[in-house]
């Protein structure tokens, strides 16, 4: 399958599962379904999953597109260190979070999706992938055409020989002998 990074897909799947959990939870709670408290749990669990999964990790090869406004959440996720970096932890976490939502029909879809995401994260962890924060590059401002400095040694200029650096002996200089010493003013 080429150079697939499973964690990237697991991330999309988990984010979608979080949203589905929230949606199912809202339906169950608002409609006051039987055992609606599972729905309330589902909203909270879904929100937690979304917050954790929103900041996209860095790809190991190539550049990574950030999600809009993710750097604040990414800073928080980075704080947890190995707990969020390691994908085994994420796989287990998602598995555990999904279980209570499985008792209610309204949220069971979210459960199954999150279990699938957990499975893909497990696969990613087995292959040694890790969550890494995206380094922000300093923005290179495209240079507008600079107004060049005007020449600092406008004509009339002394001839080329005189403009040469005075590293050689004056006696060995060119055919012309200058009565007045000429200095190099070219910048």
């Amino acid at each position, binding site marked *: 399958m080429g150079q*697939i990074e499973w964690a990237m897909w697991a991330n*999309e*799947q988990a984010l*979608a599962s979080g949203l589905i959990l929230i949606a*199912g939870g809202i*339906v169950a709670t608002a409609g006051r379904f039987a055992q609606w408290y599972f729905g309330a749990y589902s909203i909270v669990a879904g929100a937690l999953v979304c917050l954790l999964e929103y900041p996209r990790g860095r790809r190991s090869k190539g550049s990574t597109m950030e999600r809009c406004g993710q750097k604040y959440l990414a800073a928080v996720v980075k704080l947890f260190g190995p707990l969020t970096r390691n994908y085994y932890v994420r796989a287990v976490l998602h598995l555990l979070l999904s279980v209570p939502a499985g008792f209610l029909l309204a949220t069971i879809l979210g459960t199954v999706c999150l279990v*699938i995401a957990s499975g893909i994260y497990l696969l990613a962890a087995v292959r040694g992938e890790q969550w890494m924060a995206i380094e922000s590059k300093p923005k290179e401002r495209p240079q507008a055409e600079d107004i060049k400095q005007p020449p600092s040694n406008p004509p009339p200029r002394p001839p080329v020989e005189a403009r040469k650096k005075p590293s050689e002996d004056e006696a060995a200089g060119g055919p012309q002998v200058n009565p007045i010493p000429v200095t190099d003013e070219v910048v």
Partner: protein
Amino acid sequence: MRNWLANHWFSALWLLVWMALNAFLFAQTFLTYEKSDNYYYTREILGFCNRTLRKPLDHNLTFHKLVAYMICIFTAIHIIAHLFNFERYSRSQQATDGSLTSVLSSLSRHEKHKDSWLNPILSPNTTVLYVTFTSIAGLTGVIGTLALILMVTSAMEFIRRNYFELFWVTHQLFVVYMVCLAIHGIGGIVRGQTKDSMDESHPHNCAQYYEKWGDDDSDCKYPQFEGKAPESWKWILAPVILYAFEKALRFLRSQQSIVINKVIMHPSRVLELQMTKPGFRMEVGQYIFVKCPSISHLEWHPFTLTSAPEEDFFSIHVRVAGDWTENLVRAFEQQHSLVPRIAVDGPFGTVSEDVFQYEVAMLVGTGIGVTPFASILKSIWYKFQHEDHNLKTQTIYFYWICRETGAFAWFNDLLISLEREMEELGKVGFLNYRLFLTGWDGNVAGHAALNFDKATDILTGLKEKTYFGRPKWENEFSTIATAHPKSVVGVFLCGPRTLAKNLRECCHRYSSLDPRKVQFYFNQENF
């Protein structure tokens, strides 16, 4: 806005009609369930019922995505509505107050009326989860929705652009989705009163007398219900047949023999294959799908045709950009006596075919996007050779923007020979081209500056000097607008979206408000 409408009125109209049709169908079915009499008792328990309508038509990528978004939205609505339905069915099954809803729900427990039940939750002990996973509708619903969700998450742009194979393989789950969709309604869980039962005891007359339904001397008998026949297969039948037909066509085409006339290795590992196939006809700028069974039996890769329709062969230029292309180039590099077999599907059309409809054409190709223009320029050359007086195009402005010309040395050679031809034919003003190198540094620029007085460019060998950096589009457009004040100019781009946006804006800005004066029309090719 006006210019956009002028360019896109047909697709806008088509989209409007499609959305109006969707809205109409939704409203019509919704009203049937809301108002129609045979669903009177169904409404008693449920309040109202919802139904999704989807029409998977596959015309182009944007439409496909639009349909996908609609499917997702309607699936969400459908699921949420049925969640409420099941909850209400469950509640009325639990109710013991002898109300109409509980009488209706208990129909399944009467010996005589076991088959004419209304409430799919058959007894007070049955849970909603149980019914979901033991009924065809529930199971196909869950499996189908899962397939849909997996397809959507792997089709997000980030995954698609970077891990295309994952997207492609996961997207084949559509088969699961379609099958689930087709058999979703077989169980007939959505029920309405039968016609005979309505003739006998119409709900308008008998709904209030539900306590007397069991009495032998009452006019009103127990209502009989039947399931609604599944309808989703009617919607998907036509597209599924079309898709199957297209797949069969591809298989048949892959069985046809391709003769490889010439194999040319260009610099920077670009492979040119010149082939012939019986009955193959092409237009400028079209593309084909190529399969090489010795590399992979399942992979078909698209390549733009770089030959002109006037030639007696068709050709593609393949640059190494991944596993498959690497293997292909290597297979031909080794020059075995047994040349690998190639299968071809196509050609498929893109908007470049319209180039010759314009008096003045502006062609912009970036990087690899220059390939369709190879076909166009060659075709122009042939038309000149044959003195085609029907050629509407009078002037062509060609902009080639790339980082470095290495991988496109073959295109370079094409331009050099075209340049010579135009001079010989005395048509020097016809083809105006500019090459922009965006990957330059001080050395390159310095070298160019030192050789500025040479007749040909040192980098490319063309008479036209290479520019460094990106074109200033405002200048280009205003120059062309001034040079052709009364013409219709077609702008063709094969390149990135940001450039497309830029060019589109320029087209709108430099098109004159007077329709008799210069008009720029923007056409973009997608890869």
